């Protein structure tokens, strides 16, 4: 709210971002006043200022735009928010960012619905029996302090998602100040095995992929258009790759067991028996016939006949792929879910990465990453192994205080962890949350967070496209609810409890952030006046840095690469469960955003519900049709879910998407669909200890019920029934070189 003093000050003083926000905020209130007849304005504290004398940058009816950073996933797309009368209306991509170059995916655009979500937590809540009791922030901080007094450093644990930038600095400082070393960074769908595989093969965890430079892309389950690492960026690379050079269009081949969005866009989609992607990779190396030395030795047994038998890919396809890879260089081979999903995921990743070495792509389409000169700001990369560790520790009763920061492991942990029970063993559980999700409901203290459109922050994405950059996150409008707080502010307050001297100069996180950035003005490429630099930084939303590129290891290590034979089908659980990550829902943290719920899944067009994908052949064998409710049973548990008969899946696998089946969180999420984590077996990747997501075996049985599948697709399915609607032709029928 604006007070009279600041109104006075504003008129004569240099533009200040915070005051600006206040002005904006006032606009918001005024609209709320006229729109709802209900405000929190208290007598004598506020000054009503009409639009006639509206302050700087508020022109009624004219939108202003501010840059910030999208926080819906970790790709770190820069966004431009459209603000009218103090309300953020729509987000666009920030054209200045080399990551998303002005584009934004559906999930990113839906974050306004996260911000305006009616189910957000609005007050700090303290558990009182089964209910949450609203308390003040002072009380909450006191309580935390009090609980921490009774716990030793090693008895305090933190679980967070990926974290970077100055928040990470404050968090690390706070954890250090508690004497704790228990920071668990958990991301349910992080490419952790891919990172480990890359590190082994290329010497870096996350090289830069240059799809746009490749003439052929062979992807083993990497859904780079939908969910993988930085999809908006890759989609742009993909567009350039398809355009190609001189009308020679890039060729995409996707080998996976369940068709992803990327697979749906492939020139050739290969249905691979689950887990045999590594064999296929070695088979292709064999078919290429250009490998020498120990690589040739390694692949010599992988002749076409065997590979075809093991993977289910036809020999002719292996030949064609080998031929086109030989012919068109450079190419790019990607390892995605093939690596993440299996016990032998690292082996698969190694075999796939080996292809890149054999084809000489390393250094051409796989480039060294740019490094950010501020290692303390870089992203702490989440994985699933950390949750396993935390869960074991919790179950062992090691922790007295648990801080859960904006993650929802009760929902995303495999049911066999019994994470909820483990969590209950922690003495005092603090959840920093946007929603009362499954995890927050189990906490003792729930602290409501600002949305990313209300909060300050900096982010350093893991995957940097061209240059190193620090993304600025700044409020696009005033806080919607009076009693939510930014994570940075909370951390600052908490760290002040520990180290009051060090941080006493900072009133709030904004002050800290500004100070911290100005401190490094020179390193951030700034010069001159602090205010000018600061305002310039904020207006751009990005600080571009000149980061040095590292080097990649030239030769892949072949030692230890030994792929297991594909397993015989289990009698009791003959099918493999592939919990699919969809570009809309990912790990389910955004399910309460109705645009996301109603945005049809691209491949099945299903909305508002979960489904299990079954190949038509399998469905015929089992006598099931679309809409049948089947019971999908694993060793861990079972769910009842509707069937969608889907041709893009290997007959030996079934797939249930992640993200639905919430039991809490909000009106748009609760009670829609099922949660595949609930039946996921706890099987781990051999060398990294990551959860092997595709290793759950299931059987399916009809329940006798049948429903109408809620989807956009009509009963004609994907058929065009002879109408000329969506046309397609092959490259030999078209001359792309003439195109604009």
């Amino acid at each position: 709210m604006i007070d009279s003093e600041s109104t006075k000050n504003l008129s004569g003083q240099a533009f200040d971002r915070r005051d600006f926000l206040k002005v904006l905020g006032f606009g918001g209130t005024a609209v709320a006043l006229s729109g709802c007849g209900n405000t929190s304005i208290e007598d004598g504290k506020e000054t009503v200022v009409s639009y006639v004398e509206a302050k700087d940058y508020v022109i009624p009816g004219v939108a202003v735009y501010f840059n910030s950073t999208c926080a819906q996933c970790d790709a770190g797309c820069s966004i431009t928010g459209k603000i009218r009368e103090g309300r953020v209306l729509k987000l666009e991509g920030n054209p200045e960012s080399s990551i998303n170059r002005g584009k934004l995916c559906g999930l990113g655009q839906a974050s306004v619905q996260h911000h305006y979500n009616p189910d957000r937590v609005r007050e700090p809540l303290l558990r009182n029996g089964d209910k949450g009791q609203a308390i003040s922030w002072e009380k909450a901080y006191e309580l935390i302090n009090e609980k921490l007094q009774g716990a030793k450093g090693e008895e305090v644990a933190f679980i967070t998602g990926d974290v970077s930038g100055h928040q990470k600095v404050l968090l690390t400082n706070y954890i250090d100040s508690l004497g704790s070393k228990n920071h668990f960074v958990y991301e349910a769908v992080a490419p952790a095995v891919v990172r480990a595989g890359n590190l082994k093969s290329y010497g870096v965890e996350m090289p830069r992929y240059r799809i746009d430079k490749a003439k052929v892309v062979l992807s083993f389950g990497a859904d780079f258009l939908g969910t993988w690492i930085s999809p908006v960026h890759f989609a742009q690379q993909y567009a350039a790759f398809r355009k190609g050079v001189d009308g020679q269009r890039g060729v995409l081949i996707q080998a996976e067991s369940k068709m992803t969005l990327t697979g749906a866009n492939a020139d050739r989609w290969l249905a691979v028996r689950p887990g045999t992607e590594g064999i296929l990779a070695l088979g292709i190396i064999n078919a290429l016939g250009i490998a020498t030395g120990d690589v040739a030795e390694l692949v010599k047994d992988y002749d076409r006949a065997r590979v075809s038998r093991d993977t289910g890919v036809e020999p002719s396809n292996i030949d064609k792929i080998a031929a086109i890879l030989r012919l068109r260089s450079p190419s790019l081979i990607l390892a995605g879910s093939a690596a993440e999903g299996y016990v032998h995921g690292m082996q698969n990743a190694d075999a796939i990465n080996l292809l890149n070495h054999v084809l000489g792509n390393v250094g051409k389409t796989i480039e060294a990453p740019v490094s950010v000169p501020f290692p303390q700001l870089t992203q702490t990369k989440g994985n699933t192994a950390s949750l396993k560790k935390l869960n074991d520790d919790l179950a062992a009763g090691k922790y007295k205080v648990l801080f859960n920061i904006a993650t929802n492991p009760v929902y995303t942990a495999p049911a066999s962890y019994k994470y909820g029970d483990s969590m209950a063993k922690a003495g005092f559980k603090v959840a920093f949350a946007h929603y009362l999700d499954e995890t927050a409901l189990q906490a003792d203290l729930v602290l409501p967070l600002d949305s990313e459109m209300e909060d300050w922050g900096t982010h350093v994405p893991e995957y940097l496209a061209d240059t190193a950059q620090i993304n600025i996150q700044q409020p696009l409008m005033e806080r919607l609810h009076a009693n939510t707080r930014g994570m940075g502010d909370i951390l600052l307050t908490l760290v002040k409890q520990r180290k009051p001297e060090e941080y006493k100069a900072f009133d709030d996180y904004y002050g800290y952030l500004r100070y911290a950035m100005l401190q490094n003005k020179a390193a951030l490429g700034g010069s001159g006046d602090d205010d000018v630099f600061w305002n310039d930084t904020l207006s751009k939303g990005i600080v571009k840095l000149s980061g040095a590129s590292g080097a990649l290891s030239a030769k892949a290590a072949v030692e230890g690469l030994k792929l297991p034979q594909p397993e015989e089908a289990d009698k009791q659980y003959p099918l493999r469960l592939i919990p699919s990550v969809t570009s809309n829902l990912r790990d389910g943290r955004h399910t309460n955003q109705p645009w996301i719920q109603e945005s049809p899944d691209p491949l099945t067009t299903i909305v508002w519900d979960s489904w299990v994908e079954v190949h038509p052949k399998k469905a015929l064998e089992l006598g099931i049709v679309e809409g049948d409710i089947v019971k999908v049973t694993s060793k861990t548990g079972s769910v009842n879910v509707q069937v969608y008969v889907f041709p893009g899946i290997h007959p030996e696998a079934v797939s249930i998407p992640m993200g639905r089946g919430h039991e809490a969180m909000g009106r748009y999420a609760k009670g829609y669909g099922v949660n595949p984590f609930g039946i996921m077996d706890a099987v781990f990747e051999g060398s990294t200890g990551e959860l092997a997501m595709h290793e759950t075996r299931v059987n399916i049985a009809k329940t006798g019920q049948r429903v109408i599948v809620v989807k956009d697709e009509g009963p004609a399915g994907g058929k065009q029934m002879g109408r000329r609607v969506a046309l397609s032709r092959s490259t030999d029928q078209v001359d792309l070189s003439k195109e604009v």
Partner: protein
Amino acid sequence: MSVTNLLNNWAAVRHFHPIDDKPHDPYKWAMAIDLDACIGCNACAVACYAENNLPVVGREKFQHGQAMHWMRIERYWNEDSREFPDQGAEFLPMMCQQCEAAPCETVCPVGATNHTQDGLNSQIYNRCIGSRYCSANCPYKVRYFNWYDYPTTDNVWPAEMNYQLNPDVTVRGKGVMEKCTFCVQRLRAAEVTAKGEGRIVREGEVQTACQQSCPTNAISFGNLVDPESRVYKQWKAQQVDLAKDEQEKDKREGGTDLRGYRIFEDLRPYPSVMYLERVRESAV
């Protein structure tokens, strides 16, 4: 005097639009969608929800086919009874084709849907009485009817969520038909600005919400009578003529190596959206 006016303007009111006339001066908004670039990610559809205040109807109403997505991504399989769709899926963003001879326009009893001078098929919500004849006559079925009063329906725009509504776009009540407008609010703003500066809207000055969000730039949009615009160049390169119901290139012996086409051209609605066929590599 109305009859005098009628007689004086007889020639004008007897013009056929667009065939006889050259009405598109200085604008004809048109689109080109490259199906080879479209990856089916739905970003455009969500952008449309955000820009145009589309209601989220919820599970039950979606089941009844009452969804309001002005832009829908259709997913086709061209597998021809093969075991797997081994050439992937085919995605097709479908929205109002802003036909030049729109079947919907003539049938509206109250004239709630009309053609604009800049080549749009406009829908006047206030005038609409909800006879739904337009939708019945639309070959693409891209018109969406407000089956319920969404602004007052629970959980469509509950408190705070309504703050997101775009003030430039009307929120539609029950009983009116709506459809893609080519983001007419953006077009008008740009046209007015340009007019004030005594010029026409420049290429790239205005984008539709779907185009703006498309990560692969599959959608291009612009002024079809402006030779500078990408859309003009694309239509030109693909030899697709707005005012033809069969393109010269399609009459050619042995077909064409161009991939521009318009859906249901033979029904003669003269759609303003050109699609570029999806391409698949023949070598694999």
